[in-house]
């Protein structure tokens, strides 16, 4: 595996700017977007309203996943009861219909909510790629404050128009607390 040495630049992840106010990072995000960068992410202690719009990010897949899971849940609940009462073990109770669907609603309803809730939890984690114990961004300077009191904006190196000096200039112009480069960890087994 260690046939070629990995240079530091191969591990470059992006450049970050740290802000202490959510309004500052919103403005900064808009400016970065206007400058044409698309591979941008922000790291904040709580969700900032409008930040995803400012960075042009949208992902509605979770809603579809949850909706689909709910439909499957309902179908499963109804289907199970229909199978039991129509096919496998029908019971004639006072001539009442086998498919007495009103009495099947509570179980089917709970199954809907169960499936949808499980999908919401596991789906959101899966789409976010979590659990993921490590990520290059954790190496950013003062990044532990991202879950506490600071707001970080990161322009990633994979962006098509990325240029270190240009990005650094742009970010410094936004009046952050600091601007620094972020590098990933060296892989295991390298000397």
């Amino acid at each position, binding site marked *: 595996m260690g046939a070629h040495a990995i240079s530091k630049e191969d591990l470059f992840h992006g450049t970050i700017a740290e802000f202490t106010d959510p309004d500052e990072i919103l403005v900064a995000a808009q400016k970065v977007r206007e400058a044409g960068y698309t591979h941008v*992410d922000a790291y904040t202690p709580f969700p900032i309203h409008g930040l995803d719009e400012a960075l042009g990010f949208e992902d509605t897949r979770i809603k579809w996943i949850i909706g689909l899971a709910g439909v499957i849940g309902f179908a499963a609940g109804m289907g199970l009861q229909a199978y039991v009462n129509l096919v496998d073990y029908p019971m004639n109770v006072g001539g009442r219909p086998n498919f007495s669907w009103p009495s099947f609603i509570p179980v089917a309803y709970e199954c809907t909510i169960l499936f949808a809730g499980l999908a919401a939890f596991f789906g959101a984690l899966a789409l976010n790629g979590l659990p993921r114990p490590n990520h290059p961004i954790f190496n950013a300077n003062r990044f532990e404050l991202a879950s506490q009191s600071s707001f970080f904006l990161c322009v990633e190196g994979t962006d098509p128009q990325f240029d270190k000096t240009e990005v650094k200039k742009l970010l410094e112009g936004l009046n952050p607390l600091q601007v620094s480069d972020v590098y990933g960890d060296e892989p295991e087994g390298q000397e």
Partner: protein
Amino acid sequence: MASLPTNIEQLVEGKYSYKSLDELLGSLVFDQSKHGKRWFGFFAAGFFGVGLLLLSIVWLLYQGIGVWGNNQPVGWGFDIINFVWWIGIGHAGTLISAVLLLLRQQWRNSINRFAEAMTLFAVMCAGLYPLLHTGRPWVAYWLFPYPNVLGMWPQFRSPLIWDVFAVSTYITISALFWFFGLIPDFATMRDRSIKLWQKKVWGALAMGWRGSMKHWRRYEDAYLILAGLSTPLVLSVHSIVSFDFAVSIVPGWNVTLFPPYFVAGAVFAGFAMVITFAIPIRKWYGLQDVITEKHLDWMAKIMLATGLIVFYGYVMEMFFAWYSGNPFELYLKENRMGGPYSWAFWALWFCNGLAPQILWFPKMRQNKVVLFFICQLVSIGMWLERFVIIPMSLHRDYLPSAWGMYTPTMWDIMMFAGTIGMFIMFMFLFIRFVPLINIFEMKDLLLRIKHDPHAGDHAHGDHHEVAVVAVAKENQ
């Protein structure tokens, strides 16, 4: 933004920053010296209760349901009374977490996590009863529709099976909702940890959360939908529990009012329990700035409102019993008012009907001793309500020759005390080892207060006058 209360700045007292919020709320766990002898006293009491619980469960499994007071005609006694009591208490947590979120009530931010934890522990206590009261709990899995060679399925048309699905779903979704809300705070705890082993524990729980904007987007969507799912869930669970009674034909049980009346009663009892914990906790851990008097005031109002709905239910039951002209329903009315258990009925009307009316007076709502005491009366009253519904309707129904009396045994009482002990133990463990207030939501609230156009109005107390005066001085 139009749905924010105009007095949003009253939700956090004093000047706080994100840093100071981290300090205040994180220190609840990091600064273990905050939990002294008092914590240990409550934990020990809870632990003792768990001992009683284990003892009563073991004896029950060994000897059978005969050790309880259940008998014919009263086939359901303390077991089902306590089941419904605990489940009802759990509903306030979900209401605060989910319903208040959907209604954009920012005041939920400081109370929702420990209310949701309360739900989890209450449902755990509740769940013991349906499991153990089956008589052969070791085959309780028969209640679930699994493929088997017995040629057997559960009776899907029975509310007892609807209960199995409803309560299982409720505990699962509550646990997921609670844990989901904790993930970003686990990340905060991870990043504030100094000792490596703590960092690792919090880090494992945080699952690598880094606060990415993309993650927050999906997180918020999922969280909102979970809240949207939890709301009908809470309504359906207690409605289904009420169906355990409402679908039967016993007078006092066959009441169409039951589903909304049970749900309102659950919210009533649950808020009483939330306030019971909120009043001492905010004092002992110095959280008065985030769980403010306004919070207590609003919770008291919700309690009063739901108490009125419940009381309306009591009055209506008696009215319909009389108005129906049905001799069995008429006897129900007589038995409740003057029969052998009428003491419970009148105590119920006092605890749930009369006593909470004192909360109409703002001075009484603000008096924490009065409020705390009323909450205890409400908890007792809600227990009495289930007593009036269950044993009192069963012990004298259609045929006088089938009438009997119900007396709980020491094992009934011990198990109930044991579940209370378990609840206390889990709550205090939660208070000590998990951030009991939602840190990131409090920071979000702080930002909203900052952006609120009404912040800084003179009408709302000294704290903001300081800020306003400071700004005025600067501008001079």
